[in-house]
């Protein structure tokens, strides 16, 4: 009896601080944020309420931006996940010095320089940036190409570059867990190299593919820095609209409603992508 009490006290001591961080600094703020999204605002004051007015307004005024954000996030997540799988597969299948080099480069670019990377792309893609000055310098084009920067394409390019390492690592982890003997068995039973990939490798990567897709989708859907710095006026995403509710416009309940609408949309898209992956890669 005393042993059990001592054990439970030890559990509290070990788990308590982490649970407090998760509870008070993650779950509670999110719950409160959800509650606030049902409040209303009068004269810059939040009034407790249980109104759906914020959500109706979001659906009426921001359906377009939400769809645009979901589309661009889905494109970025899909491109990143596919490229990341190719790289992860290369690290896994090639191994050796080249595999170690790819893995090392991935791990190093994973950390560090979120803001630095984005503004560096601005100077790479800009009117007087690296690409344009090189192209003009080489005489390949007469005028600098303006369209490189301040376009949805620039946002896709920058975020794919930023997110790739995040997507490569879980996929590499999943590939490492694949039993190499099962691959030989598939070959032995008549599968071509492509068949092995389809039947014995990809189905085991579904959770990791879904994780990579989800991570890239969510980080894109919630980003306001990249569209602000390289997207230009035609690439306003939900992150920008949400952020502005906490700056100039100062409507926290509306901002919260926008956030949760975006999150729910994201979860739906991610869920659909996951279901699709499971369906197409299921064992037959």
């Amino acid at each position, binding site marked *: 009896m005393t042993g059990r009490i001592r054990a439970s006290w030890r559990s509290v001591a070990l788990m308590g601080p982490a649970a407090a961080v998760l509870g008070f600094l993650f779950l509670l703020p999110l719950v409160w944020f959800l509650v606030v999204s049902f409040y209303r605002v009068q004269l810059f004051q939040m009034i407790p309420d249980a109104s759906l007015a914020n959500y109706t307004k979001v659906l009426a005024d921001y359906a377009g931006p939400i769809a645009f954000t979901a589309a661009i996030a889905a494109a970025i997540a899909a491109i990143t996940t596919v490229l990341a799988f190719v790289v992860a597969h290369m690290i896994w299948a090639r191994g050796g010095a080249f595999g170690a080099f790819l893995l090392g480069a991935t791990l190093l670019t994973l950390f560090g320089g979120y803001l630095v990377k984005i503004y560096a792309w601005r100077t790479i893609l800009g009117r007087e940036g690296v690409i344009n000055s090189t192209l003009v310098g080489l005489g390949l084009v007469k005028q600098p190409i303006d369209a490189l920067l301040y376009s949805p394409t620039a946002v896709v390019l920058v975020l794919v570059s930023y997110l790739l390492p995040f997507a490569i690592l879980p996929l590499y982890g999943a590939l490492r867990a694949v039993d190499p003997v099962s691959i030989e068995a598939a070959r032995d039973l008549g599968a071509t190299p492509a068949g092995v990939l389809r039947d014995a490798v990809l189905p085991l990567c579904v959770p990791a593919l879904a994780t990579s897709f989800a991570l890239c989708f969510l980080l894109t859907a919630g*980003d306001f820095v990249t569209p602000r710095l390289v997207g230009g006026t035609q690439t306003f995403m939900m*992150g920008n609209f949400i952020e502005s509710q906490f700056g100039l416009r100062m409507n926290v309940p509306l901002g919260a409603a926008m956030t949760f609408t975006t999150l729910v949309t994201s979860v739906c898209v991610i869920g659909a992508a996951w279901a699709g992956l499971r369906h197409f890669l299921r064992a037959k």
Partner: protein
Amino acid sequence: MRKILSTAFGLAIVAFMLAPLALVVLFSFGKSALMTFPMTGLTLDWYRALLSRDDFAGALANSLIITGTVGLVATAIGTLAAMFIARLRPARSATAIFLFGLPMMMPPLVLALAILSLFAMVGVKLSLVTVILAHLTFTMPFVILIVSARLRDFNPAMVDSARDLGAGPWTVFRTVTFPIIRPTLFGAALIAMSLSLDDFVITFFLIGGGNTLPTLVWGMLRTGIDPSINALGTLIVTFTVGAAALALWLTRQRA
């Protein structure tokens, strides 16, 4: 032929991921104020310009305070939790890891705004402390992941034999567990620090007044072309990538 193509593709991807960082570092030493090729010469002027800014010292100090505290606290808290998780049955420990990993999936903007509105409701004044608290949410999951992975392949017979030889639980931790996982703990702390130092979004919303290195970058971006931004970027990248590289090296040691 296929191998050459795959190597070329791999190198292109690495270039695609690394190019922005490499260019910032390169141009921080370049004479020209514009980031164009060919470079006209090498200089340390932009570093001098950065050091002579009034707001640089404060931003550096704030960054160091936040990063140091977050690294220490996140590692301590995360390690305790990982020790608990390592003793759970596999299904439960997977659930715990998933639950504690949730903040990693949350866009920083959402995390920042949720915490900001809770603090506003409770009446907490924004300061370095609020930034540190918020940073714990997304650095702690990394510590838990790294340390519990290490503890999972920790031979329990070592702990049992220490107990058998007369060591109490605390003595076991101090004389057996801790010395063995120490490199991993340093690694986890460095990763937490790297993430904290690099954070812009959460810091931006929760710092109230003052700057950290990333918010200083943001400020400089809004005031037009200032090439010392490359020097500042290089500084941030050196700290974060350096810490991460050291962490990887430390956690590899055991293999």
